[in-house]
């Protein structure tokens, strides 16, 4: 059975509203307390309850997949680190582009210079979705 939520208590203490919710899957149950120092939207409790019920359902499913017993670590130990050469090259080109970009900003290199434009084109053409972290970390 999926988790369901029920408001069990509400109380204002020291300027904070404390709302106690009971979560239950029909077998197990526990309580959690939400707190706020100011008025919230009408759907505040509903949104929280929906989110927590979804999390608790996912948690139960995840726990169900864990096998109790000895963990076989032998496979992990024998795996050799894989060097992603394409990614390493992309990182290297990205660093070069960063340097060229700085030179361009300083007026040393024109934005239309072949060294700059060819690097830019290479980076665009070789971009892969999995490289996103190189840009947004």
């Amino acid at each position, binding site marked *: 059975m999926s988790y369901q939520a029920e408001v069990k208590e509400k109380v204002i203490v020291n300027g904070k509203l404390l709302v106690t919710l009971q979560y239950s899957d029909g077998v197990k149950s526990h309580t959690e307390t*939400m707190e706020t120092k100011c008025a919230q939207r009408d759907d505040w409790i509903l949104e929280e309850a929906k*989110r927590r019920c979804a999390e608790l359902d996912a948690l139960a499913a995840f726990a169900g997949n864990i096998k109790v017993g000895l963990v076989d670590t032998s496979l992990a130990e024998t795996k050799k680190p894989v060097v992603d050469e394409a990614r390493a090259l992309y990182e290297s080109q990205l660093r070069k*582009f960063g340097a060229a*970009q700085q030179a361009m900003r300083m*007026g040393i290199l024109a934005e239309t210079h072949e060294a700059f434009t060819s690097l830019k084109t290479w980076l*665009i053409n070789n971009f892969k*979705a999995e490289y996103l972290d190189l840009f*947004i970390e």
Partner: protein
Amino acid sequence: MIYLVSSFNRSGSSMMMRCLIAGGMPAVYDNSQENMNVLYGRGEYLPNQNGFYALDYGEFARPDFVEEYDGKLVKCPYQKLLKLPKHQYKLVFMQRNPAEIRKSMAAFTPGRSWGINETITYLYTPILSELNRRLLARGDVDAIILQYEDVVKQPLVEFEKLVKAGWKIDAAKAAECVTEALYRSRLDGGKWRA
């Protein structure tokens, strides 16, 4: 629900914050970036005349981030978007012509590159596309993309889009806050506007 404004650099997210606050949204921000106006302002130029509306980066790593900012509007650096804890978010992501972004960066810090933040502008479409795909895959971010240029040109139309998307704002009041004169580094028909 946490309400987010985000963008790559120099794309109108501060303006959007200011407008949404005027439109009635309860926002949280601090003065962590306000010294930029002092550091990089010169003559009549101020990078963000009306402020940055930023939140200290450390706030996004708080274990109680969700509890602290639930129901609030915050400006979220794009680097933090995929790392936000699971919750329910509404996001307005501001886009801008990459050439304009670079021009704005150059005006902000003459002679200095913005590093990877500037590199992004050269790979704008693929990076933005992948970022959007991953945001969608999270399943807890209801995102709407607005163009900086459109917000300046037709603010009421753009803020009404937000109202339709469930943002609880007064679109007219938000629209009144747009200052067209602050849309500098602006391309018009492929030419830089003086």
